[in-house]
């Protein structure tokens, strides 16, 4: 029995380590990449890393609650995706580019027409 618990704790740790690696990759993608599509995908990656943590915890504590939380997070990620994708389409139509460097209206201080 003890052996099994130790095994569970070990595998929980490895799952959380994997999730944190995915999370870090996603975070790096958001702050370092220029392509707005990749920024969006990085945020999805981070959300899914958190899902992985929750599901591993659900197995560890033998509880259904984290799995429900994971399902809810998936639903929220879908809602966010709808806004993200539509904004990407609008942005692309304006500038014909996905590089975030070309979207710089807000940085030009004097062009602040209301």
């Amino acid at each position: 029995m003890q052996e099994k618990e130790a095994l569970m704790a070990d595998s929980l740790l490895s799952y959380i380590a994997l999730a944190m690696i995915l999370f870090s990759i996603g975070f790096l993608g958001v702050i370092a990449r220029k392509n707005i599509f990749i920024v969006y995908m990085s945020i999805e990656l981070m959300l899914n890393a958190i899902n992985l943590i929750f599901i591993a915890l659900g197995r560890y504590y033998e509880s259904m609650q984290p799995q429900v939380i994971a399902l809810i997070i998936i639903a929220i990620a879908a809602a966010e995706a709808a806004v993200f994708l539509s904004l990407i389409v609008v942005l692309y139509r304006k500038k014909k580019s996905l590089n975030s460097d070309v979207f710089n209206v807000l940085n030009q201080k004097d062009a602040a027409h209301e």
Partner: protein
Amino acid sequence: MMTPDFIYLLPLFFVGIGAISLMILSTFKTMTIRKGAIATLLFLVLAFLSNGYNLNSGDVVYSVYPFVDIFNKMIVVDTFSGYFSTILILGGILTILIGLHYFERHKQFTVEFFSLFLFSVFGMMLLVHANELISAFIALEIASISLYVMIGFQKVIDKRIEASYRYLVLGSLAGVFFLLGTSFIYAATQTTTIGTIGNMALNTVDSNAPLLIIGGTMILITFLFKIAAFPFQSWALDVYDGAPLPVTAFMAATFKAAIFGFLLRLVVVDFDLIRDFWDEVLVYVIIFTLAYGSFLAIIQKSLKRMLVASSIVHTGYLLIALVSIGVIGESAASSIIFYLVAYFLSAIGAFGLIAYISSEGQLRITYDDFRGFAKIRPYMAAMLSVFMLSLAGIPSTIGFIGKFYIFTGAIESGYAILAIVGIIATFISVYYYFKLIAVMYFYRSSELIDVPPLKGIAPIVISVIALTIVWGGVGNTLVAYFPGVDFLIDMANLSYESLFIWQ
């Protein structure tokens, strides 16, 4: 007498149903902006009335978990949430009334906008009712996602879409950190319900404390981001500047109140452990927020950007009261609640008036544009002066009383240094607020041609807000026995008490 559970949820119900029915109504050809606004107001007024009924009926202080077998204590209805819902619904009503002229003038707005607007109000109300981290996250996302779309609603204007995109990326990033924090807290305590977390944390303090502190920190980061405190303030200027003015007013005044509503519940009820850990760091956060916000406000030429930068400074004042909670719980919490009302009135008035002034044509609203404004529109100039005085915290306005409570609370709780920094920031704020008053009254020459005259509903509402600000300030400082802001403070105290009723 027992009130049926659904009565408690009626305010939320009305706003949610309103959002959905406006979505359906917007498909009809005959719906105009004006009709949509009237329908929105109808639902908000219904919600306001039912919320007032909940606050006034039954016990003075109450705390109920409606439908406990379905929601399992995820949603709580207490005096605290009732008080905040009042602010939020009022914010919605005022924004619609003030912005109506703006929405009608700009062709891109359609009736769907009002549906999104109601969804956003719904999300904020759900946030102050939330008693569980995941439902708080859902509420936060409902409010934020509606705001992302509302900011970018005029999709022909580059500025709007870029502001929307920037807010979307950074807002989702903050949301992800909230979830990460929640997962850590779940790992430590096996629960996400507020109240239970605190109990579990007390019992299992040794091994799980680091996990709890890291998780709580992540959640704190999310909220510091959303209220634009120091290390996370960079988005605020651009996003608020890029948004349409009525939406900026709504975000600055109402969203901040909603987030402080949940943050206060979290910090007061549950996060003793984490708060003790973070108080020292928060002191530096506050000092930098005040300093950097003041700096940003001084260098702005555009009035809108100045108001946004000054809202960062006001976040700093609110955070001062947040750290004093550890020492003097009740008075600090109620000073936050009171200051939120004061700031809400001043900000929505100032932004709303500027929105009204700039609703005609493509006007650049800088300080220079307001030269000699008092000659052309004396009443508007007077109202704008009242809002500036209140934001600067000059006596005889409600802003002064709010600042007074916060600074006395800081001194009482031993954070005299914060009070000093806050008062210095207030001195500096006199510069950028009074610059506008000086420009309006003491300069000649103006090229303001297309300022709308004083007619319609918006100027009336704005002048009512201005009168409220003066009344709130004069009420209890000068005239004894004059019904002033006392009941607001009493309500703030009661709502703080209601956080501690356990069932």
